């Protein structure tokens, strides 16, 4: 984990060597790109994907940021009443996995419903009772969101459909969890261009409906963000939207513009039967991407080739040419 490949004379830092670069080819289209979780992917710069819950150098900073967002805007966390068991199911599923994946920093012990969770990254040593909301220092989903960097969505399955009925989403890429909560999976994806004609969302839903307890899959999604800004939700639109128009002419574009990759995990929770959606956001500046020549070239070509409707939906149409030109040196 500590080493990347040599870039000239320097070893690449982990933020680059562990970055989940998402493009296997020079053009990008939507697809139902799900694959089994936990498979390590080797990239031109290193590798990623060996763990379900990824912890990196931004761990403490991002969790502080999440807490600040939640304090400013509590609507980013919502749990419809029937989803309480699913939240506890998520806690009792994820904490043991996190402890097993990071044994140097964390441990989880369970005896019946009595649990002990230790997280040395936060100097935390906590005893609580599964199912007892009052045994945690904060409400259960907020607690889970204070331990993992991922945004969390929980889908209930009923009437042959999936419903976004609970979640903690502070790092949304241009959408609003508070607006979408309670919607069906197909409704949540209503605004995405192309995917409906191509039956991509319907197929994804069929896949999720059949997911059996304990099964874990993942997919990657991407967009771009100006500066290392995690909270690009609809709610904070006035704070970040203007940068999209001005960054193209900014000489600092390569440092300001980031490729934003979401590694999304899809897990059928064992006891509640809810589908757990984890969204882990990674940001890497164009300057960093350019340190890996293969990435520099491929991202440059993907951005140049991307059809306009997709670029518009991703919100990158105003600067993607400038970004592509810089990457390709044209």
């Amino acid at each position, binding site marked *: 984990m500590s080493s990347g490949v040599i870039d000239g004379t320097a070893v690449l830092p982990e933020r680059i060597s562990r970055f989940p670069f998402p493009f296997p080819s020079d053009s990008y289209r939507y697809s139902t790109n799900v694959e089994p979780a936990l498979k390590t992917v080797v990239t031109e710069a290193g590798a990623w994907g060996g763990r379900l819950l990824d912890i990196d150098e931004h761990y403490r900073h991002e969790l502080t940021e999440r807490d600040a967002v939640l304090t400013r805007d509590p609507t980013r966390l919502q749990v419809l009443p*029937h*989803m309480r*068991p*699913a939240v506890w*199911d998520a806690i*009792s599923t994820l904490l043991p996995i996190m402890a097993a994946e990071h044994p140097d920093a964390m441990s989880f012990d*369970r005896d*019946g*419903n009595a649990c002990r969770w230790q997280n040395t990254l936060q100097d935390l040593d906590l005893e609580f009772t*599964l*199912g007892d909301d009052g045994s945690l220092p904060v409400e259960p989903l907020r607690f889970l969101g204070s331990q993992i960097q991922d945004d969390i969505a929980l889908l*209930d*399955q*009923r*009437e042959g459909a999936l419903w976004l009925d609970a979640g903690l989403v502070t790092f949304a890429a241009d959408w609003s969890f508070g607006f979408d909560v309670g919607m069906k999976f197909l409704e949540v994806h209503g605004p995405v261009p192309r995917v409906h004609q191509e039956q991509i969302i319907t197929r994804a839903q069929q896949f999720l409906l059949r997911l*059996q*307890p*304990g099964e874990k899959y993942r997919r990657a999604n991407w967009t771009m963000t100006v500066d290392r800004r995690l909270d690009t939700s609809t709610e904070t639109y006035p704070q970040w939207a203007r940068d999209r128009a001005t960054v193209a002419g900014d000489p600092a574009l390569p440092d300001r513009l980031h490729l934003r990759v979401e590694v999304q995990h899809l897990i059928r929770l*064992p*006891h*509640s*039967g*809810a589908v757990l959606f984890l969204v882990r956001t990674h940001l890497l500046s164009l300057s960093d991407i350019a340190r890996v020549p293969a990435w520099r070239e491929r991202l440059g070509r993907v951005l140049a080739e991307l059809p306009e409707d997709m670029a518009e939906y991703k919100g990158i149409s105003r600067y993607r040419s400038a970004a592509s030109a810089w990457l390709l040196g044209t």
Partner: protein
Amino acid sequence: MTATALQAKVHPAVEGGLLLEVADLSVQTASVTSITFTDPAGTALPGYVPGSHLVVQYGDGANAYSLTGSGRHPSEYTISVLRVDDGAGGSLAMHRLAVGDLVRVSHPRSAFAPVATARHHLLIAAGIGITPMLSHARAAAERDSEATLVYVYRPGQGAHVQQARELLGPALAECTDRGSFQEELTRRLTDQKLGTHLYLCGPAAFMDTVLARARELGWPQGRLHSEPFGAAELDQGEPFTVNLARSGVTLEVPAGISLLEALENAGKGVPNMCRKGVCGECSLQVLRGAPLHRDLYLSEQEKSANTTMMCCVSRSLDQELELDL
């Protein structure tokens, strides 16, 4: 059994599953035994959604059985198996298991989950159909959600009845005859609060009757849930007579003997394969009378036409059936 289980080829339905040890056997009734499996290494087993089933391999075959626990952090899996003497042999093999035997099982699979938004769960079970309902009732108790159970069983043959009483108290209604059940059913189907979901498990004909009554009383389809494996272990059925029109032969089909077996015993065997109502091979033309369809092969439309039946599992609603044979 240990040797059989381990030597047999791994059945596709349990591939990638678990190898568990029989930890306990407990006799529920004269024909129902509960079997408890644990991990030989003593570790906790994967949790499961209430109403889930486990596929258990026996010899070269495999059967699905409902798990009876709530599914929360289980240290053991328990199933209850009705001995079916005229079955494919699965239930007999289960009844021959001994403590310490190793058995291949699938991961629990969910196909009969409780609806999280339900205001109330109305559970209706007949006979061995109690098993997934016990799972639902236990999960409801753990979640503080409301559940009522109507349990129909033959006098003296109520598996898990004591556990159901302890679990549900006044929310359990027991019926041991048809008349009292019909009365109870009508009452329960008409006095539920809005947002109640109905869950049903039992013999196929029983489920059809209850579902038809519920629809008659205005229940929307989305509120009705029945366990697809309720009919996996078929009951012995009532005796009936078949009249073979072309051969001019009349045969008695006693309870516990399938029509296919009765035909074979009389030297009138017909082509057959799965003997479980799945493959469609043993189809017979019915000239008169209404079959009791228990197969998974014919469509609903074909079943209601009453002109075709699968003789390996289906029986008769009428005293006598006339067949084109």
